[in-house]
Every structure is written in structure tokens, then in C-alpha cells.
């Protein structure tokens, strides 16, 4: 195995554009009781949900398809792959909650297959036949996916891995998700702040094209985001999140980080804690709370950050930090390195 660096050479993101203010259905007592319970604990009364617009964007699988096409085109891969069957390309796909197709009233077996097993149309459309799997990583899905991509590329199993997935909103799930997140937060000794009565959720689909840093030189893609560091650390032993040891970026103090992206967890209190811990390591870095900047894209939050970043001209080092209830936290340090 060669330990060469990897890069992101393309990205695609489709965001839900149908704005909706969620109110619990009158004929649904369970939904109403959940809403009331969460309101009491979190102070949230207004759930602003941007869903996929069925008329203009299609259903969630159409959004998956569009985001994937966009990423492939950005990476300059679209035509090349269509010419021949490629066993050197694979897909790592994730959603937020595993099988959920049965939550839709009009679900069909074909949708169950594409949505809950694997969106095989992505493979068929691009003649991709390499190692492809579905990943279960929730809010840390992107980081696990990038680590898997790096492992597959560096071992020689694949040349290119397209990492990404979809986030769909279901009232039962985002209400109870918030409750569980707050319970976890309290168990880790972080007080709940009820200051905001609004919460913004965005349905979205996003993909990143990952390959070895020197692999795309002959293609037309001008985009490149170098992955300088990707590591996970365990937060299991910490009874309080305040005890986390400097976010475990040991050895990375020498890298001049200019921007830190935080808040992928969706809770402001956690973002503040992340900010506090990172301040010691990178005192001059600008901290961006992704929830405040864009709202909550759940498992697509990280892709949103990288997608926004890859399309700007800044060439500084940035850090993306993620902490989820699975007991793991991740650091990703990246730099724009566009071709001139």
C-alpha cells in the first residue's frame, strides 16, 4: 500500500427548495405529542423544513441522481466513464436513518430497492462496476466514507471513489432525533440553551469525487481539494464533553489553519464547545458555525461545507470537525489546490 495523498476533484449538491413550516397533523396524536415534548425541552416551536420539490426537483432519488451527475461532471469524468465499463471506480453511499421508504405513503418495491438497499441506477448510468457499498454512519457518514475511500484507493483496490448520499426529513425522525440529541448533550454535561424558537432543516443530496492527488492531471477538471489529514478519535471515556483532549489534533499544530468549520451536530451548544476547544490550538483561525451559516443538512452537512469550499478561490488550510452520538469525533484538514 502506498501512502499517497488523496483529493476531492468534484462535488455535486442538490438542496431541497420547497419551503414548509412543519405543524403536527391534526389526525396524528403521536406526532402532536412528540412536537409538544420537544418544544418543552428545546424551546423549538418553528420547524422550517426545505424539502425536495417534487415538481421541479423530483423525488429524493432524482435529487441523488442530479447531485451525482453534477459531481462527475465537475470532476471531468462524465464522458470518460460512459465509454467503457469501469471496475476501477466505486461508490460509497449513505443516508441518515437506514431503510425509510416505508415512511412514504406511496412507496413501491422498486423504490425500496433503490432507496433502502442501493441506488443501483448510479452504477448503471455510468457503467461503474467497482467495489460499492452502503455505509451506516449517520452524521459521521461523510468522514467514515472518506476514510473508506482513502483505504480503497491507497490499497490499489480502486482509482476513484464517489462518496455521498441523501438526507430526507420525516417529522417522527427529526423530532425524536432532537430529543435524543438533547438527552445525549445533557448526559455529557452540556446545558440546553432554549434561546432559539426556530430550527432549519434542509433535505439534500450530495456527492464528492475522491481520488489520488496526482490522478486527475490529464482531465479537464480544475477543481481540487487536497485532504491533508483525516482522523477519528474516541469520545467515549469523557463523562463531560469539556474533558475532550484538544480535539486530538496532535501533530497538526504546525499546520496553519485559517478556518474551522464546526456545528455539524446541529446544536449551537456543541458548536460553542468545539469552538472553545479549538481556540487553544488555532487561536487566529476564524470559526464558522455551519448550522448558523446554512441550517442543518444532517448527514450532508460536511458535503455542504466541502462543496461550498471547492468552488471558491481561497487557498488556505481549513479544518472540519464533527462530533456525533456514536462516541466518535472526526477531524478533516483540507486545502484548495485548484489547477491554474
Amino acid at each position, binding site marked *: 500500500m502506498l501512502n499517497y495523498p488523496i483529493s476531492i476533484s468534484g462535488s455535486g449538491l442538490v438542496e431541497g427548495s420547497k419551503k414548509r413550516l412543519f405543524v403536527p397533523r391534526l389526525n*396524528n396524536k403521536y406526532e402532536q*405529542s412528540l412536537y409538544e415534548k420537544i418544544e418543552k425541552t428545546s424551546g423549538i416551536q418553528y420547524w422550517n423544513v426545505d424539502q425536495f420539490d417534487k415538481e421541479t426537483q423530483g423525488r429524493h432519488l432524482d435529487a441523488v441522481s442530479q447531485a451525482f451527475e453534477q459531481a462527475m461532471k465537475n470532476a471531468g469524468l462524465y464522458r470518460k466513464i460512459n465509454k467503457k465499463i469501469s471496475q476501477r471506480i466505486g461508490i460509497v453511499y449513505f443516508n441518515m436513518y437506514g*431503510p425509510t421508504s416505508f415512511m412514504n405513503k406511496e412507496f413501491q418495491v422498486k423504490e425500496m430497492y433503490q432507496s433502502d438497499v442501493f441506488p443501483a441506477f448510479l452504477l448503471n448510468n455510468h457503467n461503474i462496476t467497482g467495489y460499492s457499498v452502503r455505509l451506516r454512519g449517520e452524521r459521521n457518514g461523510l468522514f*467514515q466514507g472518506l476514510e473508506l475511500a482513502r483505504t480503497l484507493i491507497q490499497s490499489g483496490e480502486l482509482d476513484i471513489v464517489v462518496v455521498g448520499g441523501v438526507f430526507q426529513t420525516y417529522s417522527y425522525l427529526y423530532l425524536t432525533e432532537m430529543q435524543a440529541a438533547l438527552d445525549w448533550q445533557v448526559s455529557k454535561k452540556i446545558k440546553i440553551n432554549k434561546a432559539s424558537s426556530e430550527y432549519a432543516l434542509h433535505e439534500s443530496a450530495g456527492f464528492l469525487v475522491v481520488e489520488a492527488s496526482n490522478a486527475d492531471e490529464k482531465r479537464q477538471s480544475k477543481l481540487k481539494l487536497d485532504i491533508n489529514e483525516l482522523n477519528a478519535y474516541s469520545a467515549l471515556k469523557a463523562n463531560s464533553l469539556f474533558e475532550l483532549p484538544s480535539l486530538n489534533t496532535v501533530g497538526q499544530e504546525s499546520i496553519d489553519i485559517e478556518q474551522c468549520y464546526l456545528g455539524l451536530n446541529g446544536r449551537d451548544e456543541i458548536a460553542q464547545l468545539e469552538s472553545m476547544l479549538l481556540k487553544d490550538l488555532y487561536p487566529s483561525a476564524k470559526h464558522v458555525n455551519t448550522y448558523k451559516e446554512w441550517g442543518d443538512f444532517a448527514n450532508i452537512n460536511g458535503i455542504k461545507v466541502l462543496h461550498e469550499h471547492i468552488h471558491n478561490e481561497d487557498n488556505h488550510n481549513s479544518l472540519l470537525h464533527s462530533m456525533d452520538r456514536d462516541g*466518535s469525533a472526526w477531524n478533516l484538514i483540507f486545502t484548495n489546490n485548484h489547477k491554474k
Partner: protein
Amino acid sequence: MYSKVVVTGAGCLSDFAQTSSELVTKLAQGEFVRFQPVFENNMLKSMFGFEHDVKYAPLENARKKLLKQYKAIKKEKVAALVNVTEQVLADSKLDTSVLAQKNTRVFWGSPGNHPDLLSFIRELHSNESIDLLFNKKITDLHADSFRNDTLTQPYAEYFQLQNPILTVSSACSSALNAMIPAIAMLQSGQIDRALVLSWQEVSKFDILFMSGLNIMAKQSSLPFSKNSDGLMPAYGIAGILLERSDNIRDEQTPHFTVKAMSSRRALSGSANSASMGVSFRSISQTMQDVLDKAGVAAKDVDLIYPHGNGITASDQSEISALSQLFSSHKAKIVSYTEQTGYLLAASGGFDLILAKDAFENSRIIPIRSKGDLDLTQDMNFVFKECQTDIKCLLKNSIGIDGSIVSCLLERIDHA
């Protein structure tokens, strides 16, 4: 030069067998798993739209027993995974504390956590107070019943894991596909040990999905028989410990290495349709790939464990592929799916436990069936137990998502 990766321990849990040695013994004795109806009564059956009885082996009793054994663990699924983990580490003569080391990682080949539809399907789209009064299980309609970390987190906490668990799924080839990143991380020196657990709970969602695809058996599941009318699923957990050969200890004598693996996706030929069928060409290409990677000729393969799920079209494809590559060679073929039940994502993991027995004891436990295995004609299937030295063993796994994985195992000569 890549280091060799060896299997140093194994363990399992299913309705058929609750340890590796029980699995081997029961297969050798010719026993079959007992299936039970998925729906306890006709009302439930009709609620899900079924006209016929469907059966499965759900591991219900064992899971409840394990909850008593592991009192600190509140979830049945986690208790079962912990039990298999302890079996694997005991088999490899290691203390479970090695899992808390930074150089060890855990991989799950599994679709992961998902809820039991039966708990809330009737109340999913509308409900009144009176409905909720009668259905206390409506609270299962909660993010925690869907999120995978409600299982990974207590498991990680129990063993104090230092690294996150990587859960990958490719339907019924998940066990072997989870081994691919595990082996890559071992060979790179990133880790020294990889515990690969493969498992799939047979939920009402799975039953509904498989019935929608018309692959659940109505009468009998007879892999490699034209009389088979589908598969009969079983909830099983299989675990293996992978280590680099340069890292093993004196007390261990692994008998085989994972020589090569090959994974691919079969295309359906249409951009808009699902890859529900896998062509024999894709299967034979995958097997040829793994032989090429290993530098082994088809004539040198001694034993093959096919996937054999009981879906006639899939079994026929696999037989055609095996016939294309191996019909003129000595390779023997054997399958145990009918006896154990179809173990879905864990099926490849269970076969690796049997491979361990085959290498260690130089024997092949024969295939047994309650039907006529007419698809096995002209192929070298083993119907009587035999003692034979196995040098190369090939294992195939096929997923309904179009995934195919082949794995080539090679004997280690300790002399």
C-alpha cells in the same frame, strides 16, 4: 511486499448453532434448522398482505437468554454481537481487552439497525389517542430505532473501542465486502487486528421487501434445486478475527491465509431498472479476477463454497459460472444453506468458519438436502464426507444489490 492476512479466530450465533464447534458438529450430523412462521396469526398475516405462510429463523430465544447473561447490556442485538465477539477472541486466544487498543478495529458487514415495522406500521400515517392507548410500541417510531449508533455506541462502550466501527452493507455479500477494507488496513500497517462481524436481523421490513421481490419461499427453499421456490431467511451473526501473519503469537497456528479478494457490481443493462438479477458472466469474471489476483489457476482450486441462496435463477447463474471455469477441473463444491437457513448478510461469514474447519481437519462435510438437487448434475458436488488436503478454497457471495465478491483462501503449511 504485502503481508499475508490470516484468520486466527471465529465465532457464530444463529438458531442452528450458537458456537463455531456446534455449527460444524450439527452440519456433520446432518441436522437442519427449524423455521417458524413469521406471522403468529392470520390477522397479522393479512395486515401485511400475505396469503401464504412465510417462515424464518429469527434467533428469538437465544437473544432473550443472552440479555440475562449480559445484564449490563440493555439491547438484545448488542448482547448477541458481544457474545460472538467473545467467542472469536477466545478462539484466537486473546483477551477482549485487545479491542480497546488503538491498533484494533471492528468492522460490521451488515445493513445495520432498523426498526420492526410491526410496532407502528398501522399508526404510521395517522392515529388517534385511542390507537396509541392500545399500541404502546408506537414509541419505536423514534430516531433511535433507525440510527445505527444506538447499536455501535453501546458495543463500543462495552469493549472501550478506540476507533469507530465501520458498518458497510452490500446486501448478502456484506460479510466478504467488509473484509476488503479490513484487509487493506491490515496490509498498510494502519492496524494489527481486524474483527469482522457480519449480521442481519430478519425484520418485518426485510420480509416485506423480499416478498415484494417474490424471492421468499412459499413451500420449500432448496438451494441448487429447480424445485426451490425461494429463500428462507435466518438471523445469524458470524465473526472472524483477521491478523497479519507477521504479527501472530506463538500459541496461534492459523491454517490458512486470505490470499486474494475481488469485489464487483453487476450492471442490469438498463439505467432505470434495478440490478436484481446477477448474470453468470459477472460471477465468472469475479471468480477469474480473484484467481488472477492470487496467481492461482482454476485447476488448482480444491474446494468451492458457492453462494447458493435457494432462488433458482440466482443458483442457475452461479452454476453456469462455476461450470464455465471449473467443470473440467478437480474442484469440489459444497453448500450448507439448506441446513443453516439463508443467513443473508452473514452468509459469507458462516462459510469462513466452515473453511476454517476444512483446512484444520482436512475434511469436507457433505451437502445435504431434503429435495432433489438437480442443478448439481455434472458438477463435482460432495455428497459424502471425505478426508482430503485442501490447498486452495474459493468462496463466493452474491448480493441482491448486484454485488459479487469472491475470496480465495490458501492453506499454510506449518511443516
